[in-house]
């Protein structure tokens, strides 16, 4: 995802002189092309995220389109007040882009995990929260964000995620979920970098004779309520899937919507990380398995629920 981000940002920077890239001393060589082409619009802000976010807000107040980028916890929770007060309260187009959603940096330990960021950021007024499901959605999200005028958060995985889409989704709209595979029995709403596991779960369900719709629910805020109304109206079971805490993420947002709209789900499962700091060594795949977030585990739990 991060290579797609750097590449697409360079293209956007070519076309739009307002685009400024702020890096929290990360992405060694990743932005070389951007730097070469637009040296005055690339700023390494060092390991000082509060300042980086305030600087981004000041730039956005002055008509620029700053993108502030570093590892997820440091570009979200470390500078949460600057995001809230400087970017969101002023309602200016600061784009916060994070790398390492959820357990993408599992091996680096809980300091680098990010399972709370959606929760914090979606509670801030004016903020949009977008969790692309594959590299194509990263590109599309970035383009969509540059066309609107408020603060946005784009939550990326890391690198090497498979492409789920075959090309950039042409009609990508902030707040409008994308159906990846259609089905009729269960509806899996997946947000962010865990999308490949959700797709795999869909395939496994199919092999058990269960027809699954798999949706890339890339925007957690604003919620695609039309998609939710259809999902809860039409399917025997709705599941939310995210590499984020069960507290405050997509599952919570959908549960809030369910309660507020007096929807009575036939069956509703939430997949996400538990309320713990996950301390064991090992990479993302291993961590997902320990926490019940692989495609197989998701499919198994859905099958049990349907049984």
């Amino acid at each position, binding site marked *: 995802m991060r290579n797609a981000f750097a590449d697409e940002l360079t293209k956007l920077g070519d076309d739009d002189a307002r685009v400024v890239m702020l890096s929290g001393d990360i992405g060694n060589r990743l932005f070389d092309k951007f730097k070469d082409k637009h040296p005055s619009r690339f700023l390494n802000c060092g390991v000082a995220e509060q300042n980086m976010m305030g600087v981004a807000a000041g*730039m956005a107040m002055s008509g620029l389109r700053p993108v502030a980028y570093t590892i997820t916890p440091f570009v979200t929770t470390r500078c949460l*007040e600057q995001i809230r007060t400087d970017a969101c309260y*002023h309602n200016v187009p600061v784009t916060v882009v994070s790398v390492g959603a959820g357990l993408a940096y599992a091996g680096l330990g809980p300091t680098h995990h990010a399972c709370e960021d959606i929760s914090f950021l979606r509670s801030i007024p004016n903020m949009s929260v977008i969790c692309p499901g594959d590299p194509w959605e990263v590109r599309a999200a970035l383009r969509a964000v540059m066309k609107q005028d408020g603060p946005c958060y784009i939550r990326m995985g890391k690198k090497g995620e498979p492409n789920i889409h075959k090309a950039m989704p042409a009609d990508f709209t902030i707040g409008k979920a994308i159906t990846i595979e259609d089905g009729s029995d269960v509806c899996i709403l997946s947000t962010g970098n865990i999308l490949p596991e959700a797709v795999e779960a869909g395939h496994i369900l199919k092999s058990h004779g269960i027809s699954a719709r798999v949706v890339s629910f890339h925007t957690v805020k604003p919620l695609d309520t039309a998609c939710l109304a259809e999902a809860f109206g039409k399917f025997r079971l709705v599941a939310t899937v995210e590499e984020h805490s069960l507290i405050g993420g997509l599952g919570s947002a959908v549960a809030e919507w369910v309660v507020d709209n007096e929807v009575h789900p036939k069956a509703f499962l939430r997949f996400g990380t538990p309320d713990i700091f996950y301390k064991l060594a090992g990479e993302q795949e291993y961590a997902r398995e320990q926490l019940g977030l692989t495609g197989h585990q998701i499919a198994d739990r859905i099958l049990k629920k349907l049984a």
Partner: protein
Amino acid sequence: MVVANGKNAPDKAALAAVAARLRGKVIEMSSAAGAAHLASCLSCCDVLAAAYWHVLSIDPKKPDWADRDRFILSKGHAAAALYATLAFKGYFPEAELATYCQDGGRLAEHPPANLLPGVEAATGSLGHGLPIGVGMALAARIHGQSHRVYALLSDGENNEGSVWEAAMFAAGQKLENICVIVDYNKWQATARSNETLMLAPLRDKWAAFGWDAREIDGHDVEALAAAMADLPNGSGKPVALIAHTVKGKGVSFMEDDNNWHYRAPTAEEVVKAHKELGLA
């Protein structure tokens, strides 16, 4: 009307008279609203007078003019002093100052975002104004504009790490179009500044962080006006003015008495204070 960008010599008497008027007004406002932070307002009135009546290139009729100089009240708790300044300059009617802290009004205890003309940034949480100002100064550089950015910080605000992040970053970027003024009144909310987090030697700290840092009498309107107008000053560095001030300045029974960080004056005290300021 566009202020003349500090090109003429500052008129000391006129600036001092403006500062006294500002003090008189914030004392009235604090009393009427029962609002805190009066002493913090009084210590920075000379800086505001020098900035808005001599230094800044601004047009109150066009608050969004792209090439204006920016003044950020990073010590947002001195909002009353900023409101009085903006009203006197004509950003909004002076009569609106009577609505300070009143239900439904635009003049809350800290400056709001996107609500009141002339407020460049909503402040109140300390340590935010300077990074925002650095972003604005960099934006001017990127846009090829020549306007300047001023940020007024409290001394207690220098406790915040984000101030020093911004200081190092601005110096690393060799930003010449930004000036910090520290209202060094030696008090923070509940204690002497230097007995809380050690700020001294404050000028040396800013200098060590790469700024062209100078100490200045924060109540000498002429010196303030001249120093603030000299930006960029050819040093190749951002400028920090460590302005030595007295909290509660201008009113004998408030000066250097930290109770006035929170206390609001009675009607009787307002009359007494106005007399001392030569406003009666």
